[in-house]
Each structure stands twice: as C-alpha cells, then as structure tokens.
C-alpha cells in the first residue's frame, strides 16, 4: 500500500478546479489499489478551504504560514522536497497549470522522481504507473511508463477528470505543520496580481460567438470576419495566436489564459482545438467547427463539423444573409 499525494492549487483564497479533478482521480486510484490519499496544502494562516479538501482526502497536511499565501516555486519546492523525503509517496500529482509547470520539473530534479507532464489519464499496471498524453496538438496519443523508482511525479491536464456533483465524503484528518526553519534565500518575490483581460467587448455575454483561429491567415481577414459576426447578430472572438500576433486585443481571447464563454452557439473558424482553447468553451451550448483539416482535434469535441476552407464558408454565409 502506497500513498498518492495531491498538491493543492489555490489562488486568492480559493481552491482551483484542477485540485478537485486531481483529488477525484487520486480517489479512484486509491480505491482500486488500496492506496492512501493525502492532500498537501501550502497556504497562509487559516485558509477557509481546508474543509473542502479534507472531505475529499484521507489525510490533509497543511503547512500554515503567511509566507505561503501566494505560490512560490522556490518555497513549494523546498517544503515538498522535505515532505517527499520523509513519506516517499508512490505518486505525486500536480496540476499542469502555469504554476505547476514552474514547480513540477524542478521538484522532479530535486527529489530524483521521474516526471510525466500534461497527462490526460493515469493507470497503474502491475504496480507501475503509466500515463496517457496527447501529442502533436492532440492528433496523436502516447502511452508512457517510467524508469524504475520508488516514487513518480505526474502533472495533470486541467479538464481531464470530471468529479461528480455529489461526492462520498471522506473526512480526512488535518495535520498542521510549520515551515522548516532552514529555508534557503528566496530568489523570486511576488508583487501583485493584475487583470490582463478587461476591455470594451464582453465575449462572455454573447449568445453567438464567431471565433477565429490562426487559420484566418492575415490581419486583414479579421475585419471581414468581424463584419460577418455582426451581420449574424453575434460577437467576434478568437484563439490565442490571433492575440499573440496583435490582430485582436486580449479580451477577445477564449481559453485558459483568456475567457471562458457560454454562448448558445460557438462557431470556430480555423481553430485546431488545443486543450487550452477547448477549456474556454466547455460552457458553450453547441459548437460548430469549420476547418480544412479533417483530422483537426476540434472535431472530436464539436457538435457539428465542416471540412472546408473557412473563407468559402464565410462567403456563403454572407450570401445567404443577403438573400434572407
């Protein structure tokens, strides 16, 4: 019997969804293989979410110190390395988020535990963990195992596991711990959070979004799609590369680092369907994808698909609207 350790991700006093997703998956694995589920919280004094975590774990280890209020890879790495040396968990789960991407690789080197990142599933076969990952923008899946070790670290892609609405409560005991006394000097200092997303168009309220991706090709084409969106009574939105190229401001962006949207219909023109994009449209009623590539991953999640040149479809829509 081993232990599965889940590193709780929280921000501004709230647990992030990825934490519940990891606790759910870890719970399933623990049930099947009689492992113990331990959640570890690195947080400030009297964090309000500890109960929510305890309900879903066999044990909670809570490092309670105001220096841990905000994420710090340097601090997390020191504290978790100490804990892992002591308890040797079989699998340590970390979210594949911006913070997880900063923490997990360095923790892996420090602990010597092999790491697999961005995993969409975790299996245990003959006592060995195996992971499923998506590669080549989601066009190929890979199954991976690890070099033999007594512990492994896995980062989990957000949205891969869906915890049910009602859970079997576990009521794990909370063990409070202090920060170790001999911490090295911290080389990164948190200053502030800033909102990068505000603007004069609100894509989160629209019933119809006409969203454009890198397939739009050039800045000039964006305007034509904006006109189409307006003709259709909808609002324009986009994927990240369109913002990266400065063709549209950030507040048009859908996805993990942009906005989560919930239109009745989401029309995706020339968007391949990376998970960071799809995470933003889980609330959409109906998704219609138009893409030249019949193997584009977006067709696996869309309700309707069109394999064609987006400009031909856009022109045809304009024609129909003229007639109608």
């Amino acid at each position: 019997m081993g232990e599965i350790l889940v590193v709780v991700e929280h921000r501004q006093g709230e647990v992030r969804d990825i934490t519940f997703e990891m606790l759910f998956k870890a719970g399933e694995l623990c049930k099947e293989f009689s492992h113990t589920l331990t959640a570890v919280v690195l947080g400030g004094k009297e964090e309000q979410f500890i109960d929510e975590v305890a309900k879903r774990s066999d044990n909670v280890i809570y490092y309670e110190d105001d220096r841990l209020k905000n994420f710090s890879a340097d601090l997390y790495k020191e504290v978790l390395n100490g804990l892992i040396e002591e308890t040797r968990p079989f699998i340590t789960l970390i979210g594949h988020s911006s913070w997880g991407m900063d923490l997990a690789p360095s923790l892996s080197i420090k602990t010597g535990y092999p790491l697999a990142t961005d995993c969409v599933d975790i299996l245990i076969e003959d006592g060995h963990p195996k992971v499923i990952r998506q590669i080549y923008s989601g066009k190929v899946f890979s199954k991976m195992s690890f070099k033999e070790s007594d512990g492994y670290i896995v980062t989990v892609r957000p949205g891969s596991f869906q915890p049910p609405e009602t859970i079997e409560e576990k009521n794990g005991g909370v063990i409070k711990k202090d920060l170790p006394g001999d911490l090295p000097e911290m080389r990164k200092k948190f200053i502030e959070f800033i909102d990068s997303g505000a603007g004069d168009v609100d894509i989160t309220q629209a019933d119809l979004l006409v969203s454009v991706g890198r397939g739009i090709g050039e800045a000039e084409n964006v305007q034509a799609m904006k006109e189409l969106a307006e003709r259709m009574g909808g609002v324009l939105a986009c994927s990240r590369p369109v913002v990266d190229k400065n063709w549209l401001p950030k507040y048009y962006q859908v996805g993990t680092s942009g906005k989560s949207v919930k239109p009745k219909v989401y029309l995706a023109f020339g968007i391949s369907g990376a998970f960071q994009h799809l995470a933003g449209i889980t609330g959409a009623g109906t998704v219609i994808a138009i893409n030249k590539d019949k193997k584009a991953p977006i067709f696996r999640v869309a309700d309707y698909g069109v394999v064609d040149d987006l400009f031909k479809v856009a022109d045809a829509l304009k024609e129909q609207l003229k007639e109608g």
Partner: protein
Amino acid sequence: MDIIICVKRIPMTQEVDLEIDDSGKDIKKDALAYVVNDWDNYAIEESVILKEKLGGTVTVITVGDEDDEDVLRRALAMGADKAIRIEPGELELDGFLISNILAQVIKGLEYDLVLTGVQADDDNFGMVGIMLAEKLGLAHSAVVTGFEAEGSEATINVELEGGLDEVSKIKLPALLSIQTGINEPRYVSIMGIRKAGKKELNVVKVEDIGLSDEELVRQTIIEEYFLPPETEGAEMIEGDPSNVAEAILRILKEKGVSV
C-alpha cells in the same frame, strides 16, 4: 547581458494526416516540413531585443542532428551571435535527458539569463527549461509574458489562468520559459539567413561533454503511440459551401439564436 537560448526544430503537423510508424512508438516523419518551435521563436526575439537594449551576447543552443541547424541559422539571422549544436547520435531523448545534456554544456558558459520556450509543439512536455534551471541552480519562472531588467534583478510577468497575470521580482541569473505573444518576432529573409552563415556555429558530440553513461539514461519510456479513436466526434455537415451555410443558419435558429 549575456543570454543563452535553447531551441528546438519541430515537424509541422497541421493539415497533415499523421501515421504511426512500424515501431509503434513514433510518427512517420519523412514527408513532414519542419519549423522552429513557435514558443522558441518568441524566446529568440526576446533575447535579441534585450541584447539590442542592454548589449551583451546571445548564444543559441539545440540538441539535435545536422538538419536541426536550420533553426540555429535562423536564430543567427534574427540577431544571435553564435550557435551550438549538440549532436545526440543514437541516444533516445526525453525531456529529462535533453535538460541533462543542456545543463552540462551551459555550465561551462558565461550568462546572466537563460531562455527557453514554454513548451514545444510536438510532444508538449513543457519541462526542459525548468529542469535545466534546477540543474544549473538558477532562479526560474514558467510562462513568462514580460521582462524588464533592473541591475541584478528583473521584474517579470507570469501569465496565469483566467486572464490574470502575476508580477514578481526575480534575481539574476535566472531561467525563464517564454510564452507566445511576449513580443512580435521579426521577419527572417533568405538573404538574412545566408548572411548569418558567417557566424560561429559549433558542433559538439554528446559523448565528448563529460556525462557518464548513467547520466545519459532517459526517465520516461514510450510504450506506444496511437491515433485517437474514430468513433467519437462531431456530426459532419457535407455539401458545397452554400448548403453548409444553410445548415449552419438552420442550426442557429434551432438553438434559439436570432440572425
């Protein structure tokens, strides 16, 4: 400011039907075109912008075979000063092993800053940069969208989920993994690449950098690659564009969107 930047050449897989090769552990790559990884392109641009502003040198490194020199020459054309290719020979690489190799070579160089892309658009690990930082004992940050140097420190922006950025101060030397959109990468002409051919490009073999056999073992093992199941997915709308447009408008109406 002396900057080291690590880059990778990757196959372009949009609009291509990918196939698994006979080993079952790779894709067929013969017919694919290759480009510089998008994230790395932004990192190269960032290093060149910093050099232009603050002086110093930019050294670009890749672990790869001769064909991968394309992305080094391209970086040299963008403004990097010298390039290093580490030839891995027959080694089977994973993120861990690449970071071992890079660390061993970079250890012997002078630098204030090491940049990588957040991830590569082929196997999407997003781990090489931060593993490298830990091996070099550097301060680090992932998913960086802003950098302003002030003496021995820098103010950086890290992009978080949900449209929030985190601003922090980091001590130099540091390693940052660069996110797309941090700048506008400059255009590279064929002429530019030709001219950059005069710049220094050194090749070192992995067996000559002083890593032991144990240090050249990967941590992850590919069991198999497979294509996603065909069964799931969208209902396809067939027909010419005008039929498609009609169908889309019909669906909009059904779903209660007034056009």
